[in-house]
């Protein structure tokens, strides 16, 4: 289904991938496409939590940045603690994936992008009241105008890719 040999023979591609939050620890196993529905199932749970805990609410985000509510700090803080314990357990006991593959982690390299890009992202986050995940859930609630925001965010991503070499990193 996929052409693995060319992918791995191309070190440039690995470099490009490793700078990002993409999976550089590519699975060597080839599964039928419908195996991806397991990720969709996780996404459904995520989407429900987003709505039920009002994480996708523009008002909650405004309260967070005005220090008027503990809610979002509680959500993110708890998620990080649970995530960190999980990652620790996975590493400690060398837990494998359900397909018997080793679970791998790649260290992130620091660059100026995390500061400059981070600040730019923060400005946008407070403006739209949503980071990329909640945008998709907002569309699901019937706020179809948010598709415009998603398109604009995709355009932003494209412009970054286009001018990447000229930007300080």
């Amino acid at each position, binding site marked *: 289904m996929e052409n693995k040999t060319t992918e791995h023979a191309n070190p440039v591609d690995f470099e490009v991938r490793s700078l990002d939050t993409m999976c550089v620890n590519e699975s060597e196993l080839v599964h039928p496409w419908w195996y991806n529905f397991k990720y969709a199932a996780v996404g459904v749970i995520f989407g*429900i939590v987003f709505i039920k805990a009002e994480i996708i609410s523009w008002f909650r985000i405004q309260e967070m940045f005005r220090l008027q509510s503990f809610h979002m700090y509680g959500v993110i803080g708890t998620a990080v603690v649970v995530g960190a314990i999980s990652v620790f357990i996975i590493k400690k006991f060398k837990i494998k994936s359900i397909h018997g593959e080793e679970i791998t982690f790649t260290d992130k390299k620091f660059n100026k992008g995390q500061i400059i890009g981070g600040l730019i992202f923060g400005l946008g986050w407070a403006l739209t009241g949503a980071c990329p995940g909640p945008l998709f859930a907002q569309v699901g609630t019937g706020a179809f105008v948010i598709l415009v925001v*998603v398109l604009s965010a995709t355009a932003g991503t494209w412009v970054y890719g286009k001018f990447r070499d000229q930007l300080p990193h």
Partner: protein
Amino acid sequence: MMETITQPWPWYTAGIIIGLIVPALLILGNKHFGISANLRHACAACLPSNIPFFSYDWKKESWNFFFVGGILVGGIISTLYLGSDEAVIVHPDLAKELATYGITDFSGMVPAQLFSFESLFTLRGLVMMIGGGFLVGFGARYAGGCTSGHAIMGLSDLQWPSLVATICFMIGGFVMANFILPFILHL
């Protein structure tokens, strides 16, 4: 039981479930939690234009499209079947401040007075939706991830560059919400 589900969920319930998404994706297939990468995959799939940053086999990342597709479906299910149509309870200080800009409708997650097709053609709507979206997409990729990739996945893996990114997300958000947004809302 059903009553508990239809009520808004407390932060700890949400935090625990979101935290568990990290090991769920790892155990299901060695996948790292990160949503904004989808925007890059969409560029790579639709408009790579020979840009090196978009020249890779995006099909290998298609699991992530399924993941965000699931988020969208989760939004639909939640709205149709698990919903409470009650207005979001807004902090009185915020409600008072927003009222000065004419925002008084707190019925939805997304304030209809700010985000709608009609307001898209006003200066305020344009800045908030097109401008805000652009900053989110550009900034997330420049930073190498968004709230999920850095703040949750990165911090869970104790990556200090992710901590730097997360702190900068928060600084940017504070500056926008407290110092810039009031001017934009006045537009």
